[in-house]
Each structure stands twice: as C-alpha cells, then as structure tokens.
C-alpha cells in the first residue's frame, strides 16, 4: 500500500531573508532581493544584476573539519536544513536513531572548481590544493556534507536537472516515501551566488539589463520583460510518511499530493508548450485532484520572453478560463536556478500557512498569453488549500508538484 507523504518542516536562506519569518514578510510586502554586483560589471558581465545575500558565519556552529569541504551553496543549505529540522521537531538523538535520507537539487559548484584550478595552475602541485577542494567541487557537495554533519543514514544523493533540480529532488523524495523505501527524507535545493557560476550563462544574453532599477528588473509575465536575474541560496523541507509523523506527534504542515515530470525532447534552451503541459497534467493525474481544487499556482516564469510565454500557454491549456491566482515569486527573488523548485515550495508553504498569495511584482502590462491568466502585482489575502508549483530547466526538463493543506 502506498504511504501518504507529508511535510513536517521547512527552512529557507535566500535573498528575501535568512529565515522563514523574514521571508514571510518579504513575500507579503513584495520586497525585491535583487541588486547590482559591481564586481560582475568590472569583470565584463553583460548584466551585473543578481540576488543579494551574505554567506552565513558557521564558525560557531560547525567544527573546522565539518566546514572545510563545504562550498558556498552547502553553507546556505546547512542553515536552511537546520531551520527545517527545528521546525519538524527533529533533534540529534532522533537523527541518530532513525534512517533518514537526503536528496538535494544542485547542478554546479563552479566557484570551488575554478578556484581549485587556479590554485593548481599557480602551485603546479596537486598536493598543495588542500583537503577541502575536492569535496567542495563536486555536484554532490551539498548532500555529502549535510549527510556527514547530520549523520544521516538513508538515501544520500544529489539530483542535477538544471533549473528543475530542487523540484525533482522533492518529487523523488516523495516517491521514496510513497513506496515505503524511506520514512523520512530531507529534500531541497541549493544554488551558489557568484560570478564564477554565472559568466557563461550571462554570455547567452538571457539576463535582464535593467541595471538602473534592480528591483524592477525581474518582471515575469509582464509585456516588457527583458530577461532573468540569477540568484540563489538554499531551501530545505522534511518529507515524512504520514504514519511516521503521526507516531512521533509531529505537526503536519502539508501533504505532497503528486509529482509530474516530462522532457520536451526539443531544443536545449528554448522552452515549448507541450512539455510543461504534460508535466502539469501528470502531477494532477497522480494527485487524483480536479483542476478546480487548485487555489494557487506558483509559476516557474523567470522573466524571459520565450519561457514565460510558453508557461502561460501551458497553464492556460490546463486551467482554461478558471481565475486561479498565478504568481512567479521570481519577480522578487530572481531565478534561484538549481534551488528554485525547492524554495518555491517553501514560499508557497509560507503563503498557505498565512493565508495569502504573494505578488508577481512588476507585472504592469500583460502580453497576449499572460492576459489569459489571473496574475496580480499585489498580495492577495486568501486561503490556500492546494497549490501547484512548476519548475522547468535547460534540456527541456520539467517538474510539477502539488501540495495541499492538511485539513
């Protein structure tokens, strides 16, 4: 028999704040976390816009050996996971006595790779690169570090699926629990924030160049959008079987109802309408819900002309003329890439808990496709009992998740 899969904790470290309460305030008020990084301009970036956040000081929280193999994105993920465990009421003793898995979405650790290579070029001796470089450089840096720090003994792996990495990590964690392979899985996504990881992406010319007004640069679905803004941080959620949560008396915050995925089988960077439509429909089918039950859609929309238009059409294909509120929190965060699919579940969980729909800031004029959707540039006070969240990535990878409130 399949297990029900519930969420018992979550944590966030992003350009909207370094904890759930701060992020809640930013989401409700529509505060942008975007700024201009002068260093990127000095180095020759076409756009210096980025999400702005500072690295946490872990010196008082972790020993040297626990920190030394951790790249920037791992530091963010440690903070968000610590917050998620705390919310879930899971302490060190519980971690030691149970088989808990970890699945994180991450697709680069570019800064560690580049800095390690530069050091090698300078020293011309591999034994002078230090012990941390290899553990910081691998895509699985987040899961290898967190599983060691928290002494996790279950499934331990990283999902790399471009900008759908975090969403797929949650979906796959859901499958492990649903089929009884794990009773608890820490899921999430992490994204480094530095010029090293974004120079080649900047070179594609897909970043917004509204540098004179960073807060208005990310404008998903707006007619005058001119590109995305890279951002990052980390988001974590504690997924658990319903039975496990009830047995230990945990507060159940939501239930993952379904996970849909698809691949476009098409262009490497250009989106299409068919792939995302199938992803959304697969999630709805697996959830066993009716479209009418969806109270809110957290869109993937990144503020690129092509991508947003395709998603607007895909959403319309599924919901038709229903006036379900749709917003892209990327209007405030920028595109949190490998982390986005996980952070947007956390953002939506915050909205569901506090009865509001976060705004799609900077949405001033629709285009022909977004005009068919119910998109608000301002917060809406309303109850959310069930939401859909989309994530799409390079290579045409698509992931959709449906979460409901436990009533």
């Amino acid at each position, binding site marked *: 028999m399949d297990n029900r899969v519930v969420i018992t904790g979550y944590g966030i470290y992003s350009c909207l704040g370094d904890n759930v309460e701060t992020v809640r305030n930013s989401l409700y008020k529509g505060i942008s976390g975007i700024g201009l990084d002068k260093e990127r301009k000095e180095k020759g970036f076409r756009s210096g816009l980025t999400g702005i956040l500072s690295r946490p000081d872990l010196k008082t929280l972790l020993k040297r*050996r626990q920190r030394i193999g951790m790249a920037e994105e791992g530091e963010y993920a440690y903070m968000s996971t610590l917050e998620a465990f705390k919310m879930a009421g899971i302490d060190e003793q519980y971690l030691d006595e149970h088989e808990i898995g970890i699945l994180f979405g991450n697709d680069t650790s570019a800064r560690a790779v580049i800095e390690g290579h530069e050091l090698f070029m300078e020293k011309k001796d591999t034994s*002078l690169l230090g*012990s941390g470089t290899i553990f910081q450089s691998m895509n699985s840096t987040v899961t290898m570090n967190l599983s060691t720090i928290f002494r996790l003994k279950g499934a331990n792996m990283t999902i790399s699926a471009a900008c759908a990495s975090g969403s797929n990590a949650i979906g796959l964690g859901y499958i492990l629990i649903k089929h009884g392979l794990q009773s608890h899985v820490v899921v999430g996504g992490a994204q480094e924030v530095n010029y090293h990881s974004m120079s080649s992406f900047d070179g594609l010319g897909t970043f917004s160049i509204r540098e004179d007004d960073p807060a208005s640069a990310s404008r998903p679905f707006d007619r005058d959008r001119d590109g995305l803004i890279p951002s990052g941080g980390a988001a974590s959620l504690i997924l658990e079987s319903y039975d496990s949560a009830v047995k230990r008396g945990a507060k159940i915050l939501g239930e993952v109802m379904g996970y849909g995925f698809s691949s476009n089988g098409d262009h490497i960077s250009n989106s299409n309408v068919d792939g995302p439509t199938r992803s959304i429909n697969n999630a709805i089918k697996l959830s066993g819900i009716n479209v009418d039950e969806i109270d809110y859609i957290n869109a993937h929309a990144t503020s690129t002309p092509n991508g947003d238009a395709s998603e607007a059409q895909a959403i319309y294909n599924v919901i038709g003329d229903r006036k379900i509120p749709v917003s892209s929190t990327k209007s405030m965060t920028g595109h949190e890439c490998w982390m986005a699919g996980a952070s947007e579940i956390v953002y939506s969980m915050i909205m569901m808990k506090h009865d509001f729909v976060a705004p799609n800031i900077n949405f001033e004029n629709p285009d022909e496709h977004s005009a068919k959707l119910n998109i608000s540039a301002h917060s809406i006070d309303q109850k959310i009992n069930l939401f859909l969240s989309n994530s799409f990535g390079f290579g045409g990878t698509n992931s959709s998740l449906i979460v409901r409130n436990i009533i």
Partner: protein
Amino acid sequence: MLEVKYTDVVEKINVFLSEEFEVDKSQITADGNMKEILDLDSLDYVDLVVVIENNFGIKLNSEDFSRIQTFEDFYNYINNRISGK
C-alpha cells in the same frame, strides 16, 4: 642568507597551527602530542602540508610526519629543513 632564530620558527609554527586547526595557542606545548592536541585525521595532514609550504616554502610528505610525535619534534624537523641541516 640570514639565519632564522629557532624561537621565531617556533612562534611562527604556533601561530599558523593555532589558526589553521582552530586550537588555542596555550594548548600547544613543546612536549604535547601534536596529532592528539590538533585532532589530526588523514585529511588534516593534507592541509598541514599546505600551511607548511605557505609559511616556509618547503614541502613535507607523509613519511616525514611518521617521525613527528610532539610539537618539539615538529619544530626541530622544520628548523633543520629550513636551516639546510
């Protein structure tokens, strides 16, 4: 070439060991067991090679460490290497 004073070598080593391995300098004593006090594991020796190279421009390998038990052994070994003994 100017001769480096032994006490300066000791001071320099104590400073970088304290910083790198995050132990209070007062814990580092000449007769103390270096591996135990610095809590060194196999990976830490990789980092020890790096800090020695950064501070003295000399490179140690794993066989060199096998002869070092106390901090004094370490001071003497480094001092001999940089003095060309």
